[in-house]
Each structure stands twice: as C-alpha cells, then as structure tokens.
C-alpha cells in the first residue's frame, strides 16, 4: 500500500480571503494552504505552532509579525502588496523587493516553491 505523501504547508495571513483563494489555486498539488485572517495579533504565535514551510502575508504589520519566525526557521516570507501590485520576499533574513506589477499568482508560486526547495523540503 502506498503511503500518503505529505505536502508542505503554506500559511496565508490576509485581510483579503480572495488572496488565499488565488494562492490556493496557484499552489494546487504543490503545497497545502492554510488561511488565517489578518489583524488578530496571533500571527507570530501560530507560525511557531504550525511551523509552515512558507508564509504569505498582505500587510506590512503581518510581515513584521512573521519576520522573527521566517528568520529563525529560514522560511520564505512573501509580502504581497495588493494595492500597488508589488511583492517583496524575505529569505535568510533579507528582504528582496520585486519590480512593480510583480504581484501575480505565478510569481507567488515561484517564490514559495523556491523557498520550500531551498529549505530542503521535497516539492
């Protein structure tokens, strides 16, 4: 009997549930997406609890809240700025700004998949 393969976990913390829908669609078959509403002040705690393989947020506040976890666990942190269509990525503790207009499901998928791969999780 074949054992059930476990997918990497990606946490989305967002004030826009449709972002979670888009990320879920983009990562179908690649990762399991778990969504949480933004602004509750619990992000740092449940990231420690869940130990996801990548994190996607849509506000500077949630990015800040997820920073310590991302640094310590060397997890890819993706900050999507929905209003100005921009992405910034944190990996190995450093932020990298992507050019304007880069916020797309495909770019998020690439960033998350790269982060998961670099972390040594088999995708």
């Amino acid at each position, binding site marked *: 009997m074949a054992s059930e393969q476990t997918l990497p976990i990606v946490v989305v913390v967002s*004030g*826009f*549930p*449709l*972002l*979670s*829908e*888009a990320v*879920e*669609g*983009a990562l179908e078959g690649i990762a399991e997406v778990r969504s949480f509403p933004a602004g509750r002040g619990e992000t740092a705690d449940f990231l420690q609890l869940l130990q996801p393989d990548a994190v996607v947020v849509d506000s500077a506040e949630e990015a800040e809240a997820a920073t310590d976890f991302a640094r310590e666990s060397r997890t890819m942190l993706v900050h*999507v700025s*929905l*209003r100005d*269509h921009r992405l910034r990525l944190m990996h190995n503790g450093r932020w990298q700004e992507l050019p304007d207009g880069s*916020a*797309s*499901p*495909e770019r*998020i998928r690439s960033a998350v998949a790269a982060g998961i791969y670099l972390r040594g999780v088999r995708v």
Partner: protein
Amino acid sequence: MRRTGIVVADASPIFRAGVRHLLARESDFEVFEAASYAELAAAVSAHEPDIALVDLELPTTGGVAAVSRLARHSTTSMILWSFEATTDTILAAITAGAKGYLPKEISPSGLIRSLRGVIRGEAPISRELATVMVDAVHGLEERDRVRERAVVLSAREREVLALVARGDRNRQIAQALSISEFTVKRHMQNILHKLNLPSRRAAGLFYRSAFESEQGAVSVMERTG
C-alpha cells in the same frame, strides 16, 4: 443547466485568480477575465456575461466611467468593487448604472451569495451603504423642496443671497453688485420675509442647501426652528 457568466474586470491578476479559483468549485458559474476597460468591453460584447465585477481603479478609464459606458448598452449587471470607496464614489457608480457595490475584503461565501443574489434581481449593497443611499434620496427630495421655495425670490435677491451664503458682509455685497448698502439691507429684509427665515445665517444655510449641495441637503426648517 445554463451557467451564470461572470467577468472579473481587475488589473490585479491575484483578484482575478482568486475569483476564478473560488467559482471553479461552483458548478453554476463561468468566469471570464479582463485586465482593462478595453478587455472588459470586449468580454461583455463577446460573452454577454450576466455580471461584471468592475474594479474602481480599472485601467484606463476607472471603474465608474467603465460602468457608465457599458451599463447603457448591455444587459450585464455591473457591480463595482474596490479596496475602499467613498460613499460619493459608490453613489456615482450607482447613478452611472452599477447594480451594487462589493468590498474586496468580502468573504468567499459572501461573494458567492452576492453573485447569486444579483441573478435573482437583488442589489449587493451593505447595510451601511443602504442607509447612506436612503439619506441621499431624502436629501435630494429636501433640496427640491427648498428650491421650490426659492422661486419667490427675484434674480437680484438670489444674487444677494448667494453672496450672503458665501459669508460676505453688506458692504462687500454692495460693492460686488454695485448697489448701496441700504439696498442690500432692503433685499435682505425681503429675502427673510419671503422665505420666512429668522436670520441672515439661516438664509445662508438655505442657499447652500438649495443650490450648493448635490446630496445630503440640510433641512433648513429644522435648523432654523
């Protein structure tokens, strides 16, 4: 079963993908995408969708103008959506032909419920917005009543009243209209008498509510007692 056609008109591929992914789980929806006004117009023309979700900041026209251009010539129900919009913007969109407004923070279940409601002829509008709209309609009615009252004023009296509403003193009004201060005072007395208003301040409020505010006109009678 005929599926409900939805075109998501939004420059953000994330929101387009979000709606597409959400509605793919529902068997009664068919989703089209548009990233600009031109693509929206083409999609409406080609697919005749039941509903268009139009972003307030849709390139290159903006959502309100897009609704205005398309609502008159198609049977597609236009719904404006945005991150946040002022009530003025939403009212402008509805005046332009939009059937409702949805915030982009909407939950997946809320969006599906709203879209199905549109098909049943319902207007997706929040309770807060419904209150604003009722107030706006009452404001327009009130403004019309106030304007009717102003019919008794002569053209010169109306000119004087406009300057009073602007906050001008009698001397300034006299200079502006090339008349004496005495004449200004006489016009002012006539205005107050004809409109049955108690004071100069009330007259200024009357003018502003009748002629300056396109919405939310104030009740002069209530304010002046």
